[in-house]
């Protein structure tokens, strides 16, 4: 989640498990998940959310060879444990836990959460969100999630995952890149699916943000 602002933000800490920020200019408190000031002179102010892609370095570099990189001194570098990936890959069954990782989609009237560990089983889910046909894609290494609108030039497409990790639509057999959403082969070549902003959150945090959330599949 990226936000655009003329203020400078720092971390205040965690309050009831929610990451809380402050700004240097007014010392207001901000909810990181909500992107909104919850206390202080800026209370109620909403930051603009900008699209971003969570993926592996290899994938990002392929998509943007000229990319720059934010770095800290090596001492600050901490790699992720494999535990969480294993949990997501293997713990498919069982009810939703407070700390389960979800992918959150929010619209005006609807909010939906996809449990990552259930998403990890199928990796491609197609359904409807706020009257738009969508697909949710999770990469094989569990690093990358994308959400796209399945409508192309007025036609709703049905997709399947190919063996080499592309999307293929049933209507024209065109191949589509699952991360960029661009068609790389077939009648639709060159066209691009519209991406939707979806965010990772821990279930309790997302639920507090959008209490009207429905969990996909429940």
């Amino acid at each position, binding site marked *: 989640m990226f936000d655009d602002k003329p203020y400078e933000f720092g971390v205040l800490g965690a309050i009831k498990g929610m990451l809380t920020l402050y700004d240097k200019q007014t010392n207001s408190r901000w909810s990181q998940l909500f992107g909104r000031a919850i206390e202080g002179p800026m209370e109620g102010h909403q930051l603009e959310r900008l699209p*971003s892609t969570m993926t592996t370095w290899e994938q990002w570099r392929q998509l943007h060879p000229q990319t720059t990189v934010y770095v800290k001194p090596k001492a600050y570098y901490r790699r992720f444990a494999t535990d969480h990936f294993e949990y997501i890959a293997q713990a498919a069954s069982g009810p939703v836990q407070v700390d389960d990782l979800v992918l959150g989609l929010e619209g005006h009237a609807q909010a939906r959460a996809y449990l990552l560990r259930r998403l990890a089983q199928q990796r491609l889910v197609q359904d409807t969100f706020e009257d738009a046909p969508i697909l949710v894609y999770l990469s094989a290494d569990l690093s990358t999630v994308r959400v796209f609108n399945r409508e192309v030039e007025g036609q709703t497409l049905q997709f399947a995952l190919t063996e080499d990790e592309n999307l293929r639509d049933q209507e024209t057999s065109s191949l589509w890149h699952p991360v960029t959403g661009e068609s790389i082969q077939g009648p639709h070549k060159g066209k691009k699916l519209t991406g939707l902003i979806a965010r990772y959150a821990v279930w309790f945090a997302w639920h507090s943000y959008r209490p009207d959330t429905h969990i996909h599949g429940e």
Partner: protein
Amino acid sequence: MMTQTGLTDIRPLWWPTLVAFGAAFSLSCAVSADEQSEEYDGWAPQDMSQFTRTKEGGFPLNVDPKILSATEADLAEDDLVMGAVINGEARAYPVNYMNGPMHEVVNDELGGLPIAPTW
């Protein structure tokens, strides 16, 4: 096939909009959750929903970030990054550099726009 990092390291907190602060404390104790599905009996994330801990005055601001080219950056292929493109300018924010209370939000500028990537 999952990517294996092959390292034992700080417990995970790799979801972007969450309390890395609290999790870094508790997950390093590696206690498994109470309830599990019957098939799976391994590590599971802990309930952080009651955790509160703030620093008086807040943590120092993360400003004037160091930015390198793709080749200078020396990242591993499977490093998770948060990528953004603004006004044609692309930048990757490696999640591995955004752990810990001081580093979860960055004050940066990309494509002429002041942005706050946060994890």
